[in-house]
């Protein structure tokens, strides 16, 4: 599973992407992955707690908290978008 971070979240976490291989078997939902990454990266935990909603996309689509995850997924976390 490939994890990607964008914008200021990338700076807070300290990396642009990381690979989970093998994927810990309990990471079957976005919520579980978030909790896992929050333990691994204090910056991620802080961002989740303090900067409002962190958006999540799986395989380039927005997904809710309870979305299921599979080993080959690309999961991205990022702040609210500011393009246009």
């Amino acid at each position, binding site marked *: 599973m490939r994890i990607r971070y964008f*914008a200021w979240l990338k700076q807070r976490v300290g990396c642009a992407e990381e690979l989970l291989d093998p994927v810990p078997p309990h990471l079957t939902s976005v919520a579980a992955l978030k909790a896992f990454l929050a333990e691994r990266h204090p910056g991620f935990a802080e961002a989740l707690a303090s900067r409002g909603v962190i958006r999540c996309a799986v395989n*380039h*689509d*927005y997904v809710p908290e309870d979305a299921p995850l599979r080993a080959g997924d690309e999961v991205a976390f*990022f702040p609210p*978008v500011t*393009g*246009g």
Partner: protein
Amino acid sequence: MIRVQAEPFDPGMELARFGQGRTDIGAVATFLGLVRDVHGGERIAAMTLEHYPGMTERQLAAIEAEARARWPLDDCLVIHRYGRMLPGEPIVLVATASAHRHAALEACAFLIDWLKTKAPFWKLEETETGESRWVEARESDEEAAARW
């Protein structure tokens, strides 16, 4: 059509090309977003747009498909840049063509409103004093997107 590119584009040339040679289009609406030299009272020296390659194209295509499903559009164009740009440079162009003016105008406003809250771009501003800061998302953008 969706174009995501680092290179500047020429809005006048894009509008001239858009719908060229067709005689069944009654209305063309466009929205052009430009880098401003001031934000929140501070002078801006440059702006860098980060994006999420792959997801950007996918989301923009979905937004275009949604617009075409909601309004009878003859044509639709979204150009969005990424990378570093200077004040006055174009960031985004949305163009819609329809037989009817309200379809063109509404679809254009819809596209830019949705794009603002769904397309994975993030603006990093450089102030004239050399500082960099990420632009905060605005609630008013969420509200604007929610009205559609």
